[in-house]
């Protein structure tokens, strides 16, 4: 019901809902001939990521909805592009399977409640959850797709099998292209068995000085962890809601304060044994650790992946991806009043910034680049509702990207400028 309420209720006067791939193709052909730029959206849950668009028309994939084929034993599910993520996850769960990259429900960040969006949106943004460092990101879980390019031509690439080197791997290119290359109509996801058990070892009250070391040690061990996150309570930012303790209120957490969480998944016996090995290996004190069982562990990681720590914030949110070795160094260099947490064992930082200016954002970008990472603005605020460079790029990659864009969408009618000015 909640999802239904969140279905497209945009104010756009020119919102179009094609009902078939052919209709998408006919419409884009028409816009191509008349040079009319269009905004492509799935269910619009991540519409605010990227640069704001001013298009004459908006094409929603809302009505291209439904599961086309799901073969659990073949480990794939083929869906129409506008299919709700919740529908996909529900059916997979019934068969004890999952999209292993842990797709993020951005509803919590933008609205303070679930608004999971569509399959196409997940692929277009390619932003993955905590298990990413172990299993790959969304792009590693797309086996094939069908789409309509900027000339209105229906194109396809890939298939339904994992091992496939027939032609260029366009599935990778379509992921993280934010609808600027083609309007997706059909996606085949690779699915994997869901683990029987999930347990989490929580180490309390570490700081940014030592937590990344624990994350690194755990990931580099043979224990095979599938989640490694640090949720600090410092620095205290007066303009952010310091909500670690409130968000992660779980019965078995012994202490308040910062949380360093390590997840272990697998069969029951193995998970129990690995939990013990991990404690021994990290040499942690029982008093300062908590162990979460499957039920609580799942709640914890769902809240982490859905960014509930930043639920309905009014501030800017950005995402920094860096080599894990640079994590602590970078955080020291950043303005110390920002609220943040560290995921992917130190390779990802989510950050909430208050009183941010474009100049300050760009100076942060310079520091991130110095550490060989990149930064993207994910959510704007009232005081910084626009930045020129939402995503990071250099000249050589910009030129190549522009050429790629032209090969799909020569008249730049699909989400023009959504990622970069000129693309």
């Amino acid at each position, binding site marked *: 019901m909640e999802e239904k309420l969140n279905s497209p209720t945009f104010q756009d006067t020119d919102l179009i809902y094609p009902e078939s791939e052919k209709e998408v193709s006919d419409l884009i052909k028409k816009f191509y001939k008349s040079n009319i730029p269009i905004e492509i959206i799935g269910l619009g849950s991540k519409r605010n990521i990227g640069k704001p668009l001013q298009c004459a028309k908006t094409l929603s994939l809302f009505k291209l909805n439904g599961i086309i084929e799901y*073969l*659990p*034993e*073949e*480990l794939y599910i083929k869906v129409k592009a506008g299919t709700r993520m919740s529908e996909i996850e529900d059916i997979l769960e019934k068969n004890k399977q999952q999209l292993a990259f842990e797709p993020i429900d951005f509803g919590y960040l933008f609205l303070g409640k679930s608004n999971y969006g569509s399959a196409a949106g997940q692929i277009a943004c*390619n932003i*993955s959850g905590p298990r*990413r*460092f172990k299993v*790959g*990101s969304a792009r*590693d879980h797309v086996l094939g797709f069908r789409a309509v*390019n900027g000339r209105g*031509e229906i*194109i*396809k690439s890939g*298939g*339904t*099998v*994992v*091992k*496939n*080197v*027939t*032609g*260029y*791997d*366009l599935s*990778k*290119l379509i*992921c*993280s*292209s934010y609808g600027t290359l083609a309007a997706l109509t059909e996606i085949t996801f690779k699915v*994997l068995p869901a683990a029987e058990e999930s347990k989490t070892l929580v180490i309390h009250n570490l700081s940014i000085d030592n937590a990344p070391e624990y994350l690194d040690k755990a990931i*580099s*061990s*043979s*224990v*095979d962890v599938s989640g490694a996150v640090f949720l600090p309570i410092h620095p205290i930012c007066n303009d952010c809601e310091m909500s670690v303790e409130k968000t992660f209120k779980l019965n078995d957490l012994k202490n308040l304060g910062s949380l360093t969480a390590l997840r272990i998944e*697998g*069969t029951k016996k*193995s998970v129990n*044994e690995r939990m013990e090995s991990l404690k021994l290996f990290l040499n942690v004190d029982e008093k300062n650790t908590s162990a979460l069982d499957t039920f609580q562990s799942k709640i914890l990681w769902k809240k982490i992946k859905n960014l509930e720590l930043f639920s309905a914030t009014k501030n800017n949110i950005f995402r920094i*991806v*860096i*080599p*894990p*070795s640079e994590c602590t160094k970078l955080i020291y260099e950043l303005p110390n009043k920002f609220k943040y947490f560290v995921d992917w064992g130190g390779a*990802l930082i989510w950050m909430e910034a208050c009183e941010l200016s474009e100049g300050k954002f760009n100076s942060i970008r310079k520091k991130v680049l110095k550490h*060989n990472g*990149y930064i993207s603005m994910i959510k704007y605020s009232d005081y910084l509702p626009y930045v020129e460079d939402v995503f*990071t790029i250099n000249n050589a*990659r910009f030129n*190549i990207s522009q*050429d*790629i864009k*032209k*090969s*799909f969408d020569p008249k730049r009618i699909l989400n023009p400028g959504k990622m*970069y000015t000129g693309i």
Partner: protein
Amino acid sequence: MTKLQMPKIDRKVFARKDTIVKDLKKIVNPEYVLDHKDELRPFETDGLSAYKQKPMIVIFPENTDEVSKILSYCNSEKIKVVPRGAGTGLSGGALPLADCVLLCLGKFNKILEIDYKNRCVVSQPGVTNLSITQAVQDKNFYYAPDPSSQIACSIGGNVAENSGGVHSLKYGTTTNNLLGVEAVFMDGTISRLGGKTLDSEGYDLLGLITGSEGLLCVITEVTVKILKKPEEIKAALIGFPTIEDGGKCVTEIISSGIIPAGMEMMDKELIRATDNFVKAGYPRDAESMLIVELDGTESDVTELMERVKKISQKNKATSIKISKNDKERLKFWEGRKAAFPACGDLAPDYYCMDGTIPRGKLAEVLKEIQSLSKKYNLPVANAFHAGDGNLHPLIMYDSNDKKALAKTEKFGEEILKYCVKVGGVLTGEHGVGIEKRELMCEMFNNNDIQQQIKIKKALDVSSLLNPGKVYPILRKCAEEGRVHIHGGKTKFPDIPRY
């Protein structure tokens, strides 16, 4: 040898050969520019040795700057360039053109950095796949993709072909284990795509160039992920009374939620041939056989192996042998890895195919191959990467009999078409190259192929980088698609192929 149409020779370029050699000698050490016909002979073919063509010039740059200058020069002079790693590819991706500069990355042979903190290795592209694992194994790390030719194939070539191996169901292929590259485009532009971060932003150019078979850029540096070695690895050798039972067992293992590190299947012909060859203790009376390898923690492997055993028994397994130690496990694999050379003992020649199909169609496709074998009166042996549905049927024939060769070609073509018909693809890991170029229309329509060609032209305006590969030249679109081996001798007889 099948006659192969290649892009038209540019006579004007050929006529300027001496000037071009002189110019190239200004870019690199003059000793590393080869143009005498005797010097060119070793480079006239790659792993697909049925096709031979001497290049116009061979060049060995030593650094990225030289690669950039060579490409920039060739681009402005409209000279074709064919990049080459170790030249072990099986689809003819590095086959030279008569008027090309063959750009060899053999001098890029150093591992540049081992970074345990970020769990990656930075390497030059000419380093072999196996050397990467060897460089990190003392700390119990390894590089996951393991193509059969890993002792010889280069990591840059792996990127170009998106190489797989027997463990790709669980650990993915090159594209899933690659963090970054330094690439040089045809106009000389040098660009870093990705790096040591897990994701990269903007269009996934790294994903695009992986598996692009040397058509989009030349790789000059590679950063790959390394993984901690699993605590325990065990393999089971399971015999079945029919192919269907083996196929059903594969499907049931996956359906039960187990993702084996490797799952290989062989048919009766190959079980006997390989067991004769290496005495691996295979069940010689079985109609089909599975090798199921599980890895992880000790308790995981023990528990899952027990489940595999039960599923196999349910599917009428006639024999189940579980490796007691690493030596025995490697012995199981030794037979599988000897599958190709063992075929050399069965017939003077064989063609190796490389399609991928949905696992559930395994029994159906094997039956179809058997019935085609009867139709063409040619024996066939089957080896499968069953876990990911990648099949390698080996058609046996005698090339001295001209009619047998034509029949074999037709047979191979029908197998690949059948793979596509049941929802599979033309090539799982060998690449399209020149070999399956004309079969692309079986899988893709004109729009699909045109979109790919437009990408090619966007990055290489004059289509000078490795032209004539991957995309169809002929209209009839269905002639080739095989690896041709004569007298059991491949171009690289010492490299394992499986």
